[in-house]
């Protein structure tokens, strides 16, 4: 039966005008989406490159001054070696370079800036990660490969599988089939598997052509991307298989399948998001801002005590030159640090509430396979919310280290020399988001597919043939 089925389906598909045109359309969509991803990647990298060059030039100037002074020469810009100048004006660039995989899914990358200058002037709670983007563009989202697979591929699957059984039922051939010694649901499953394999092959070709064109090299992440795509495809074929068995007419099947699509792709993600917001309301940034400002005000009013209090906690920084030896910058650095410490519980409480919301969403993502796919795919692309939260975390902890590093220089009133410049902290973002979440997503999608196929097989002989 299997070989006959394969022969039959191949013949059907090769003569099917819809199938051929849909395949061509799929290739065109993948290429257009890939092109968008590539353009986004290029823009992001170009901007990053320009930012790095700019920063290198700034650091170069400081380096040259230090070199001249180390040779015992005089330099008119020796002020550049002051700790406040290096910590604030020169600063350090925190960067989040794009991975090649980000060409496949733009994700949240259009919302965020990928380079931030770390200076001791920034305070962590109000650090801006905004990229300049048209909000209308943000609302509509990006036409990338993740969009094509999440939204459009299921529609293509529905378009060419919604009537596989009902067509036979409507033409009366199913009755004929059932009278032969075969299990019709198994026969149908085989047809579905063959169609699934055909579409998988076409999509694979389309994805490979796109990947080659836009320059995504073969990697384990790309393979996992293929796997999660296949698992998502399998889910949609499985649901269509079950609807075919349960449904009585082609029109009804298409309505049911489209209703599933709407629920899975449009309604559930929005409802989960809304529910998360209601259960763990996003804390108000406005209130946080208000409290931060209150704290800053209190600290600035008590500027003198701030320095005293700071020195009480850091006796190693006290110099013998007397009380008045410390000026504005020492007070400034000390109050910055005390402010961060005072604000930390506030900011932490805010972050914890957001974390609770995220965890809730994470737990409920299993309700929608579209979310499972999008979540896994954007993580592979390095453009998911998780990646950006991780980057923010890196930036914030680096920012604290940065200030701490310059503290002794500021209190010592010591200019930096060549060796000190070599020992300045370097920023490096290395994502430690493991693939375990993605493997869970893939497993859930596959398990759902198998369960639906088994349920379909279990309904053998229980559905009408008229």
């Amino acid at each position, binding site marked *: 039966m299997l070989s006959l089925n394969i022969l039959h389906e191949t013949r059907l598909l090769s003569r099917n005008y819809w199938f051929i045109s849909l395949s061509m359309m799929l290739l065109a969509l993948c290429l257009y989406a890939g092109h*968008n991803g590539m*353009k986004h990647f290029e*823009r992001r990298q170009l901007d990053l490159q*320009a*930012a790095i060059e700019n920063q290198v030039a700034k650091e170069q100037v400081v380096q040259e001054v230090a070199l001249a002074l180390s040779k015992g020469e005089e330099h008119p810009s020796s002020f550049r070696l002051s700790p406040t100048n290096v910590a604030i004006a020169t600063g350090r660039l925190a960067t989040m370079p794009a991975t090649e995989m980000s060409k496949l899914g733009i*994700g*949240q990358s259009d919302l965020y*800036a990928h*380079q931030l200058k770390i200076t001791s002037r920034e305070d962590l709670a*109000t650090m801006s990660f*905004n*990229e*300049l983007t*048209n*909000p*209308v*563009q*943000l*609302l*509509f*989202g*990006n*036409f990338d490969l993740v*969009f094509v697979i999440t*939204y*459009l591929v299921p529609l293509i699957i529905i*378009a060419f599988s919604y009537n596989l059984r009902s067509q036979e039922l409507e033409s009366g051939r199913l009755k004929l089939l059932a009278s032969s010694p075969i299990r019709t649901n198994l026969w149908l499953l085989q047809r579905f598997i063959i169609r699934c394999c055909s579409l998988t092959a076409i999509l694979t070709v389309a994805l490979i052509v796109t990947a080659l064109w836009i320059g995504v090299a073969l990697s384990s992440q790309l393979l996992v991307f293929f796997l999660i795509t296949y698992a998502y495809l399998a889910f949609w074929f499985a649901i269509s298989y079950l609807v075919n068995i349960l449904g009585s007419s082609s*029109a*009804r099947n*298409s*309505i*049911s399948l*489209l209703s599933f699509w*709407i629920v899975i*792709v*449009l*309604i559930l*993600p*929005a*409802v*989960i*998001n*809304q529910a998360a*917001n209601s259960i763990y309301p996003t804390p*108000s*940034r*406005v*209130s946080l*801002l*208000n409290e931060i*400002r*209150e704290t800053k005000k209190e600290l600035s009013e008590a500027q003198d005590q701030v320095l005293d209090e700071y020195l009480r906690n850091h006796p190693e920084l006290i110099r013998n030159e007397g009380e008045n030896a410390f000026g504005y910058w020492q007070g400034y650095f000390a109050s910055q640090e005390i402010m961060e410490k005072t604000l930390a519980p506030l900011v932490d409480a805010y972050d914890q509430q957001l974390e609770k*919301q995220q965890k809730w*969403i*994470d737990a409920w993502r299993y309700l929608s396979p579209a979310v499972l796919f*999008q*979540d896994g795919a*954007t993580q592979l692309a390095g453009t*998911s*919310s998780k990646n950006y939260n991780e980057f923010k975390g890196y930036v914030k902890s680096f920012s604290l280290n940065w200030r701490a590093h310059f503290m002794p220089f500021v209190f010592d009133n010591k200019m930096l020399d060549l060796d000190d410049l070599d020992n300045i902290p370097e920023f490096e973002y290395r994502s430690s988001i493991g693939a375990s979440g993605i493997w869970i997503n893939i497993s859930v999608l596959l398990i759902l597919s198998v369960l639906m196929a088994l349920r379909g097989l279990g309904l053998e002989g229980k559905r009408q043939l008229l």
Partner: protein
Amino acid sequence: MSALLHIAKKEIRIAFRERLIVFLGIIIMVLLGISLFAGFVSYEQQKEIITKTENDKRQEWLNQGDKHPHIAAHYGTFAFKPKTVLSLFDFGLDAYTGTSVYLEAHNQHEFMFRPAQDHSSMIRFGELSSSLVLQVLLPLLIIFLSFSSYTKEKESGTLKLLMSQGVSANAITWGKILAYCIILLIMLMPFFVGLILIANATANNDSLPDVASRTALLITIYAIYLFLVITIAVWISMKSLTGRNALLTLLTFWTFFVILMPKTVANLSESFYPLPSMREFKAGIEESKLNGLDGQTPRSVRMAELETEYLEKYKVDSLSQLPFNFEGVSMQAGEDYGNMVYDHHYEGIRAIFSKQNRLGSIASIFNPFIATQHLSMSLSGTDLHTFNHFENEVEEYRRMLVRRMNNDMAENSKYGEFYEYAAGEELWEEIDGFYYTAPTFFFALRPYYLELLSLLAWVVFTIFLLKRSNKKLKPIHG
């Protein structure tokens, strides 16, 4: 006329017998209810927080104590974008535009805290708002409801029967359209009544003016949009040979108009008119402030020219002989130059936004979904024009505040004495608090004339189409 009513009655009866349709209808009503309720709760919360914070900020400004006006200008204040009452209906761009901005001398700070950054990636699937249900989901229900309106009559032969009894094609078509309109009216009535009540109850102390006319037009726009979907669905059913064909055609149209086209247009507009990055934008401003807009007039040259101008104008030898504190004047001159630089660069960005959005407006001529979406956001006060208006008002307020501080410094302090002069509450009180009022009804609609025209043209076009097809209707199947 009675035939038309009979047909409408029969269609309604059939629709209510379809379990799937009734089920989907209930889901849509529940979703509308939930989204309206959740929108209202979030609106109330936000409003309370913003009102409280605005009051706090006002008190903070008034009670900042005696200090030099320039220090007060740096101390500055914050402005917050209030949620409009109709934003509970259409969230629009609220998740993607910043909510707070710090106002101080010398610098235009960017708007902080886009709510989308505090959400998971799931927000990119869209938010559950009433407008999403009405714009995206309800058309699907209409499609499911009406795809077989004609094909069923053709397939079962009842169309032939009806026409042989002298029922005109016009009566059949409009009877069906009337039936679907009544079904939608029954479904949506509670929702719109709820919306009107909420809008009415909160209209007086909201940042959105003309809430009544906005709500009325909003309901009209959606009525037109849904009417268009109904007429197109009935027309396609009339033109199709089988129900399956009609359904597939309608679903293809839906996918294209609602999912594919808006996203493609937005992406194409971004490719045609690329924006600079935030870094380039800020670097451009810094560079122009440093070396002048022409790249050849650094700050020191500009200041020297200003000094010479004042010395010559007042015929004195030194700045300290001027009858006012020159530092206040130079501060304001620096401020004015900074404003000019900012305007120059930001207008560039606005021009690109506008070109990008223009493409969306043009696309709305071909796609009533895009037209409805734009109009809905505009009337709800959640579109880009309202946000730009908010930004302009905030910036104007900031400039007024800084100017007043600089003028006070020029009038009341002496040249070279910075720490000796301190202003007090009297000066702080001269600066009113910042309370935002969104643009008026007509101002809000003005940029969307193409969208309005599009909807009207579509109504005329579909009525014409139906009239023509009614004349040519043949009661045969296949």
